[in-house]
């Protein structure tokens, strides 16, 4: 009984905060609503006896959502939500897709017959996970580790100041942009892409941003 009450509280919390992510105006709050959703799911996983996984999920998401908040503040022009603005496109189609996928998956869950075989109450889930990770599924574990390492190196390579074409403050840009300082001087690194010199003036920097947004209802 208590278990059910707690579970439904957590479930409603997870779904409600997931919905609030896309309805709130303040971007930092959006990132932390997402964190609350993850915390709810993490606690449900702890209740499902996957203790280690639930706690690790909460640990990971704490750091990840702070990073997301940092990126929100970097890239959104209205991070504090001081002016209400909804920035959506193809809203109806997206809602239809959302409801559709929810309907399909719930139908699978409600109408399919799955065998019911519960975790034995004395199971040592964490110990079994450890033995599995370093025993039978060692290859998966190592592949995940190497993938994470490659992702780290790739991410740093993509965004480091010493970019792929040289240092950013020495005029290193991707081929189609003219470096600000050395406009006529260096032709830039030779890249095999065909887009090098044929591109006219870049049409990016001068656009007026507010005109591009689809203003939704004033909320």
């Amino acid at each position, binding site marked *: 009984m208590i278990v059910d009450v707690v*579970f*439904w509280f957590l*479930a409603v919390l*997870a*779904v409600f905060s*997931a919905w609030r*992510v*896309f309805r709130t105006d303040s971007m930092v709050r959006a*990132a932390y609503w997402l964190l609350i*959703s*993850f915390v709810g*799911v993490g606690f*449900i*996983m702890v*209740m*499902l*006896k*996957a203790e*280690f*996984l639930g706690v690790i*999920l909460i640990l*990971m998401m704490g750091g*990840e959502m702070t*990073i*997301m908040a940092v*990126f929100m503040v970097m*890239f959104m022009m209205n991070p504090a939500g001081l002016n209400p603005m909804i*920035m*959506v*496109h193809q809203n109806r*189609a*997206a809602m239809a*897709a*959302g*409801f*559709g*996928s*929810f*309907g399909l998956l*719930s139908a*699978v*869950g409600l109408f399919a017959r*799955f065998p019911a075989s519960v975790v*034995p109450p004395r199971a040592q*889930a964490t110990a*079994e*996970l450890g033995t*599995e*990770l370093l025993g039978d*599924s060692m290859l998966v574990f190592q592949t995940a580790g190497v993938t*994470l390492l490659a992702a780290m190196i*790739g*991410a*740093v390579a*993509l*965004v480091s100041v010493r970019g792929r074409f040289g240092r*950013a403050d020495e005029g290193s840009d991707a081929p189609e942009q003219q470096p600000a300082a050395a406009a006529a001087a260096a032709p830039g690194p030779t890249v095999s892409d065909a887009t090098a010199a044929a591109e006219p003036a870049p049409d*990016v920097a001068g656009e007026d941003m507010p005109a591009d*947004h*689809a203003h939704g209802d004033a909320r």
Partner: protein
Amino acid sequence: MSQQAIFVVAAAIFGIGVYGALSQQSFVMIMMGLELMLNGAMLAAAMVWAMIAGGTPKGQLLVVVLMTVMAVEAALGFALVTGIYRVRKADITEKLKKLKG
């Protein structure tokens, strides 16, 4: 806390994630939608491990793999968002119009 209840909850979170990934203009909000989709998937995987597969260790492994996918997707997603912004000064999808017919 039955199978069906958790399925429905996971499907709801997944559906909201699909809505977010398809409807948002800002890159970071799209990424939030993707994270929500993976969140729903992880909840469903944990439920299957706990209630359908009887606690087999490979079920937990699936959840660990999904967490790894989440981490990798977040890292590379943010790197790409930063890269795109540097090259094209675009922070919403509407700004990327070069391939538009």
